[in-house]
């Protein structure tokens, strides 16, 4: 069904599949594609909405594509796709969030902010070169993902950029991620638990020092 059920097989996915090529010095290559829906759907609750993108531990190659993807398209493993060229801020995203990032880019363009949107596609290997090259051009970064923020994809990207392109950053890296809670069922809470387009717009503006000051504490 969805990747939520893959946790029942996680030992085999990691220990029997992912590590075998290494442990056997190439004898056991385990050419398997694990394919399934990931992340939140509408109203399916806590046990069916988990995003597993950041859980690719030892899994060497993991891709997170659009949920209801167009028919088979050919692309190169490890290569992200530049969806929108820009010069003011880089926005990285994958899967459903790419659509949201593109909408956010449209809104930002109206306000004079030119956003560059990168569809990561491949989480592991992560193309750090492309991301860093983009940040060196725009000097600002917003990472977007559906999963939990702690130890997430955005955290890794941020670390990579700080390691490789620290001098080029003109603003702190902004992270937009799912709320740090199990997915609630109620429609209004569910909406608050996943990133929305306005969250991405707000973070991009903050990175460009264009937003209003933070809301006063109550």
């Amino acid at each position: 069904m969805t990747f939520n059920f893959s946790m029942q097989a996680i030992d085999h996915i990691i220990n029997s599949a992912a590590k075998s090529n290494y442990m056997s010095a190439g004898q056991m290559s385990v050419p398997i594609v694990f394919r399934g829906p990931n992340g939140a759907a509408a109203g399916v609750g806590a046990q069916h909405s988990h995003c597993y993108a950041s859980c690719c531990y030892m899994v060497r190659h993991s891709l997170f594509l659009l949920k209801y993807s167009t028919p088979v398209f050919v692309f190169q493993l490890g290569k992200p796709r530049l969806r929108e060229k820009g010069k003011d801020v880089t926005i990285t995203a994958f899967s459903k969030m790419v659509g949201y990032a593109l909408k956010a880019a449209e809104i930002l363009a109206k306000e004079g902010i030119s956003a560059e949107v990168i569809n990561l596609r491949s989480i592991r290997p992560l193309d750090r070169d492309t991301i860093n090259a983009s940040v060196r051009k725009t000097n600002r970064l917003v990472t977007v993902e559906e999963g939990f923020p702690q130890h997430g994809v955005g955290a890794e990207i941020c670390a990579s950029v700080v390691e490789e392109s620290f001098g080029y950053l003109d603003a702190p890296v902004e992270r937009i991620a799912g709320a740090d809670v199990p997915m609630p069922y109620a429609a209004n809470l569910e909406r608050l638990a996943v990133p929305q387009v306005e969250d991405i717009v707000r973070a991009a503006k903050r990175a460009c020092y264009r937003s209003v000051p933070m809301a006063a504490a109550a």
Partner: protein
Amino acid sequence: MALSHLKSSSSRSNLVKPLAAAFSLRRLISTSTDPITIETSVPFATHRCDPPSRTVETNPQELLSFFRVMATMRRMEIAADSLYKAKLIRGFCHLYDGQEAVAVGMEAAITKKDSIITAYRDHCTFLGRGGTLLEVFSELMGRQGGCSKGKGGSMHFYKKDSGFYGGHGIVGAQVPLGCGLAFAHKYNKDDAVAFALYGDGAANQGQLFEALNISALWDLPVILVCENNHYGMGTAEWRAAKSPAYYKRGDYVPGLKVDGMDAFAVKQACKFAKEHALKSGPIILEMDTYRYHGHSMSDPGSTYRTRDEISGVRQERDPIERIRKLILAHDLATEKELKDIEKEVRKQVDEAIAEAKESPMPEPSELFTNVYVKGLGVEAYGADRKES
């Protein structure tokens, strides 16, 4: 059809009846607790144990209560179907209509000190444990009045104060948890048992056998109940299991196969199982039951079985009809009175739905509650960490 042996008190009523008719006395629906004995529809099939008696003791009060509760469950599930189609219920919705006898029979044999844990087809089990219609519909619509305050949804109903531990979405995961509940009962020496319910689809899960092994080694008071409705989503049992005799699958653990459409057979089996579990450890009950709806609201339920099969079961084995016939045969109520009960039930369900619709959505601050126990003081963030 079940045979009934009326005792002496009822033979008196045979004399009273014509008199009453003659005087047009208004006979009240019987709520007496005078015993009535009923024989179960089908004999029990056994594995490594002796069967309980086919003769079940009941009384008019219980018979009528079975009728009312099952009618409520049936009406509730059908109402949930309409609410789902009206998009007031979102996500997943797995309906239990057809299987009501299992929930009702089980409750009649146990107390609220015993624990029940089940999978996602949990609305009626929750109701049986003392949940209200309002809590059910509020939860289904994601409102504050729901049993999980709107945060759980259809698959995550809980009622800890009456020993109902959910409500689980991952197939088979609730069985090891149920064995754990039994471990707690044994540890606490509270003379209670745990019922871990699962379906024929989950019956092939490895974790079930692992949990069963340790439960048997430690003599835990757990009763594994396989609600065999013969289809795991769309897969028929003969395609999924090499041995669909689920009551035998425990190997060294005794098992009983029960007609799950007969509430009294279920009651007898659960009573028997509880006594067994307290004395000698785990036992498996296979309830031979049937669901009229598909697996969930996204499944029409007719692509893998024929409509004739569904209507056949509805005609021959419907659990509510069985109780209705018993009530009429024992002259405990008239047809009209039973129809009136059904009308009353329908009204209660409609009222609960109306009230649930008025219940507000959860407060946004509820997004962050219950992440840690006793609010550890750790902050939790929404999608944008810097936007509070």
